[in-house]
């Protein structure tokens, strides 16, 4: 966990943006907790934002590469698959 905190300390503004996004998304998911259609749409939107954030974060860090983007893409894809199958 220390590396995670060190990483956050290095680029606080990037993680503040991500933190605000995640809080907003959690609130939306809670509001629509009985509406799986809306929850699904929120997760599609979250996956899109997560990918956009990854581009922004790694571009700012100067280490944006295809392999890094694929890592984010695969995690987002796995999350979407599980949510679509479950909700």
């Amino acid at each position, binding site marked *: 966990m220390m*590396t995670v905190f060190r990483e956050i300390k290095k680029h606080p503004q990037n993680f503040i943006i991500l933190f605000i996004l*995640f809080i907003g998304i959690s609130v939306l998911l809670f509001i629509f907790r009985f509406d*799986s259609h809306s929850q699904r749409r929120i997760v599609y939107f979250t996956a899109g934002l997560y990918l956009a954030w990854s581009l922004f974060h790694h571009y700012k860090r100067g280490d944006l590469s295809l392999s890094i983007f694929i*890592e984010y893409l*695969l995690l987002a894809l796995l999350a979407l*698959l599980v949510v679509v199958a479950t909700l």
Partner: protein
Amino acid sequence: MGRFLSRLFIPQESNNHRALILQPSFLGLFIAIYLLNQSLLQSLTIARPGILGYSSEITADKVWTLTNQERQLQNLPILQYSSVLSESAAAKAKNMFSENYWAHSSPSGKVPWDFFREAGYQYSVAGENLAKDFYDTESLIKAWMNSPTHRANIINDKYQEIGIGVINGVLNGMKTTLVVQHFGTPLDGRVLASTPPSSTVNTVQNFGPVSSIKPINPALISKTLGSIMFLIIIGVLIVDSYITLKNRTSRLTGSSAGHIGFLLIILALLIFSRQGTIF
């Protein structure tokens, strides 16, 4: 075997200082395993319809009682139980099973009002609430009350009567219980107080042959498999971060903090998601 497991979970020189599980090839493998699981479940719905599905203990009388309890909380008069509207609600549920759809309008173009008319119910105002895959009536009513449009039907002061259809059947190869609420006020304004559904008689009907064997819940299988995958990835991300810090390794990888945050949100959604869908 031990060495392979160590490479799988722990960053070291032999795995280019990144646990194999976190590398794109293994993330792709997770996706492939999940897709295989979904394909197997889908094949089962085709090969053995009714094996997978959702069991339910919902009855029409409980739906009627709890709907009226919600109205009484709003100081509204209770809805009289209408056997004609119940006929129309049951016909709608059976139509969804026979035409294999889940919506207010059928693929053949039938709209809710067609079922009201076919049952012989002339209305001045009318409405429809749908639900499927719920286990108990309490969570079903809660879901409707938390959706603005469904809630508006339940606490609409223009409605005077209600009909409820609770039908078991097989939809898209899965055993389920469809619940249909039809609300209305007769055009002539004459509300006939019909006998309410009784808890002593069976208020649940079957559409087609429905086995009495409890079905296997497919969403639970998908949810469990997904949660296990996310827990493994989150755990390995934490171990990976710790060892990388300890060894002061510099690598080109995605942000562990970002990944953990994203996966935790999805995991929380999976854990707290409820069974059942409303429309």
